């Protein structure tokens, strides 16, 4: 990890924003490390969950929003369930992911495909109202340059009636489209 000059990097506005948007008193974290001890994905993280919490407390905005961990967090909520300070750590991770996306930051390393998958998933919902599994996977494969990823799995599923080549669209598609538009609008006003 590179050297961090605290006197130059503390961002008060960032600390306040994370607290407000996550609804969590981030200053309450006393670094016991229970979140990290229980995190099932920590082995793949660049910053451990307790380090993310500490860096939020110190207002190290760039460092936190640039890490892979906020994208690799599987939202299993074990950290939250075990936090002795009652901090919803998973909600903080969610908030950081949302902030990074809003700032248009390109997720680093393994985070890139997580963001790509999420975007494809939501595009499917906006377009069809429900997740079109087949099309979403095919699109993900194309965009990540691995067109035949899981082709054998797909064939097995098709044979067993577990893959549909069409999707049942709800009648309220316009309604769903409007939800996406209105959320976008409301978030621009914040």
């Amino acid at each position, binding site marked *: 990890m590179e050297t961090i000059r605290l006197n130059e990097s503390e961002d008060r506005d960032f600390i306040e924003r994370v607290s407000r948007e996550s609804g969590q008193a981030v200053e309450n974290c006393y670094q016991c490390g229970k979140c990290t001890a229980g995190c099932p994905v920590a082995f793949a993280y660049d910053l451990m969950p307790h380090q993310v919490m500490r860096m939020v407390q110190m207002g190290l905005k760039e460092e936190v929003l640039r890490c892979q961990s906020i994208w690799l967090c599987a939202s*299993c909520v074990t950290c939250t369930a075990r936090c002795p300070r009652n901090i919803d750590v998973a909600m903080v991770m969610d908030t950081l992911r949302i902030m990074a996306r809003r700032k248009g930051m390109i997720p680093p390393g393994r985070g890139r495909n997580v963001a790509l998958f*999420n975007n494809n*998933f939501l595009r499917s*919902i906006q377009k069809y109202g429900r997740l079109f599994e087949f099309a979403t996977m095919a699109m993900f494969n194309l965009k990540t340059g691995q067109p035949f990823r899981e082709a054998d799995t797909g064939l097995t599923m098709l044979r067993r009636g577990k893959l549909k080549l069409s999707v049942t669209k*709800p009648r309220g598609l316009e309604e769903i489209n409007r939800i996406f538009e209105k959320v976008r609008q409301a978030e621009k006003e914040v």
Partner: protein
Amino acid sequence: MKFAYYPGCSLETSGKEYDLSTRAVSKHLGIELTEVPDWSCCGATAGHSTSHLLALALPARNLALTEETGLDVTAPCAACYQRLALACHELKQNPQLREKVNEITGRPFHGKIKVISILEVISSVGLEQIRAQVVKPLKGLKIAAYYGCLLVRPRAIQIDDPENPQIIEQIMQAAGADTVDWSHKTECCGASLAVSNEEVAIPMVSRILKAAALSGANCLVCACPLCHFNLDMRQLKVNRLRGTNYYLPVFYFTQLLGVAMGLNPQDLSLHTHFVDTGQVLKLVG
């Protein structure tokens, strides 16, 4: 007993065993399920990873549609359950936010219904009643009940203890099966990362299979289509990539309940798994 039924996207495709067996078992137990009219996706992980407001509005549309039916809603999928239940909780707690979300969905939700997991619905029939329906006790099965994350966390929506839940064990024991005590029943299987970063998900699946095998279980039982797909399909991959030799069929609890109640195997879709279920089911006879 009557409930609105929210199948969710996976139950129409990769999780069809769960949909079929849930409907069959519910019918047999006298639970009437009416599909939520015109339901749409709950947003799942992609939704709450992207926008807090979107993660409320997508479930809110379905909650409003359900409220029009006057029934409480059950969602078998653990992810759908968690998203619907959390949105329901938050919108009930915060009328101001509810108003804002109602304006976005254009469908007023008044916070008058409850979201209940299918595990709770079925166990509310009563263990004695379930026992009375068993014609083929699940003898020979040593079940590792796997809950994953979404049914037991966070606290606001947990259906049982987040570290050592028992509800699946109770139902399976009522159906005549043995259950094992084991360490990984609420450990995350990494399903949400499995498509984008499979090399991260594989060790997570592997740890769960190892713990189940060490406990002496001969099958896994779950209540989530995402866990199911991940543990069933990726079990073969774990074996191939890591030189292991796990053979642990992964069932939905509704499938085994159906077997115990003597329902037609076709209606339970026992033949569509990746890990063959035949050998273990022979033990039941």
